[in-house]
């Protein structure tokens, strides 16, 4: 089970929880299972999010592994100038 931190305002989409436990292998798994378990977040996920896995911001790399001890933080999608 990976420990997924839900930050700030995104918590409203996860029944107010600051963190959830979820059995996920990689980013794709996470992005598939999150809206299944918490339908409120589907729109947000579809609009695009960035996910920080062990301190690295990951935008799209589906097969980036998530380990049982990984730190996972769901964030708004990072852009740049």
């Amino acid at each position: 089970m990976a420990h997924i931190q839900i930050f700030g305002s995104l918590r409203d989409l996860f029944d107010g929880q600051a963190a959830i436990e979820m059995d996920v292998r990689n980013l794709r798994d996470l992005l598939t299972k999150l809206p299944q378990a918490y339908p409120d977040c589907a729109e947000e996920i579809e609009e695009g999010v960035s996910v920080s896995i062990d301190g690295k911001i990951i935008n799209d790399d589906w097969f980036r592994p998530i380990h049982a001890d990984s730190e996972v933080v769901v964030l708004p999608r990072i852009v740049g100038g």
Partner: protein
Amino acid sequence: MSEYQAREFKVLGQRLKRPDGFDKVTGRARYGADVEAAGMLHGRILRSPHAHARIVSIDTSAAEALNGVKAVITRADFPQAAKGYEDIQDNCMAGERALYDGHAVAAVAATSKRIAKQALKLIKVEYEVLPHVTGVEQAIAPGAPIVQPGKVSKRVPEGFSDNVVRYTSFGHGDVEAGFAKADAVIEREYRTEASHQGYIEPHACLATLDEDGRGDLWVCTQGHYFIRDMSCAVLGLESANLRVTASEIGGGFGGKTTVFVEPVALALAKKSGHAVKLVMTREEVLRATGPTVSTYMQVKLGLNKDGIITAAYARLFYQAGAYKQGTADFGAMPAFAPYELENVHTEGLDVITNRPRTASYRAPGAPTACYAAESAIDEACLELGLDPLEVRLKNAAKEGTKSSYGPTYQDHGLIQCLEAVKDTEHWNAPLAANQGRGLAAGFWFNFGGETSVSVFLNTDGSVTVTEANPDIGGSRASISMMVAEEFGINYEQVRTTVTDTGSMGQNEPTHGSRVTFAVGMAAIKASREIKADIQQRLAKMWDVSADQVIWQDGKAHCTDNSKGIEPMSLPEIGAIANNTGGPIGAHHGANMEGAGVAFGVHICDTEVDPETGFVSVKRYTAIQDAGKMIQPDYVEGQLQGGAVQGIGWALNEEYVYGDDGRLQNPGFLDYRIPVASDMPMIDTVIVEVPNPGHPFGVRGVGETPIVPPLAAVGNAVSRATNVRLRHLPMSPPRVLAAIQSA
């Protein structure tokens, strides 16, 4: 998973000349407006003089009848935009309503610039003027004119007008409990005005598009794949059929990552059957491209006598222009990112107004938020009589710190940057009368993203690198240097070229401080694939196993000394490529995740004339962690350029709107960016803490340098005057008023 391997570098760190330099100092380099095509027409855009108006009707008949006019278009000439691109299309050409002064409403293509200009006057637009709002505080108030109804997202708190369209928040701990523990709690409001990227080259393009939807576009842009994909989405084209070539680019800073004139030029080309060149005027650039947010920010900060920040809170209202954007996220996340905080809470609210749709500008969203946060820290330090550097050092985020926006930091160089402040002569120099010294830290995420690069070994042993990211700050040089380093050859033997969308796979634009990091990494990996291929070939030739062929000092060596095989150089290997399997080359396409964050710390000395309120910057030092410098001149150049842009934002630059909702200063005379005589030399100190996510330890450096200056200058001016300035820019009238009211 660390990509980085410590090693000695031979090419990296040298101050080598850029390959595009000769053309740029002789005037040969071709920018957006520097090309022509046979039978070319000139395009020009008619723009709304109203901040907000319903377009009742547009009569183009008189313009169409003018001799030399070959096409006139309005929104009716555009198809339905692809899902998600409706706002981009509407911003390129207004639909039912003009949403800001300068919004495009029609366009013409004619045989000369003069005729095109004349034709615009013959287009009759009937407007029904609607109430407008351009100020962020006016826009959020209940009862404000609503810019676009029905745009409010879930989770926006109540009590605001429907112009507040998005809400986001970050943080951890319990800020109220933290404030209760503080010896000083300061609660302040800060405001910043919109600035513009101010690139000297106006947007320009040359388009052809035939009836079947096949076309070519030459354009100055930071990202020709973005331009292609957006133009296709807005015009109903297929990506493969629109080949986009990026010209040399005369500055972008985030402002050239989206479309403004390109779909218009393409639509005119299609309708007229001719190539159409469309070049913006400076006035159009300022009225109708994408400036930054203006802001209204509330900050509350708790500090105890030991210099520990017990709690930090910020609520940031970001004025996004006429369309929904998410920039407030990028204020709320980095505001307190330099600090290890037990209790932190930030909120970002995006506000729409009757102003141009904002675009990215170098670390979009961060400079203003850091201005508010770093100003509040300075105010708290003054209140408790604490040293601003010591307080920052005490609270500084380290490796393993849980950041204010969630993730735990990997290795980074903030502490080293702060320690470097102590060692500068600048920090320890005395100040004269009416002078003040400001300090501020700043942060940007950086990212990597989709990247495609090809590397070829030529038959003479030289190496060709083909990539597709417009080079703004010297990336062709830095990529060539990394490839030369990887092969162990000279920089002069490698040439890097930026190619078009028809010749290379997808690339994100030159943004997010990504190119040297991501394109460099892809080029290194392609080079490694070539080396592996060469090992296989030589193993066959030498009748040894591939692991007995190693790469050293630019040559392939056989480790089996018994064979008496002489090492082979790249020219020797290139010469027999066709005998050993054919042309040698490798393509590396990947999503280059793993960019490392970048922290910077700036020191600014200002002198304020108490009679006039005029601020002069006397001395400036920018310090930043670059991971590993490839070409030091270009790293310094990023720090110097970013710092001066930030100084301009802090002191002069401002979008000024009249009560009529029209931009009052759409020119470089009145929208005044820093000139040479305004500035001192900008000293730089580069710290190198390798990014574990890059083979050579590279971190993006381009964006962070614009984050600290707003606060560094603000803190310096406030300390010089003993009056806290909380509204940027600190133009002489504002400073004088603050001094006089104190």
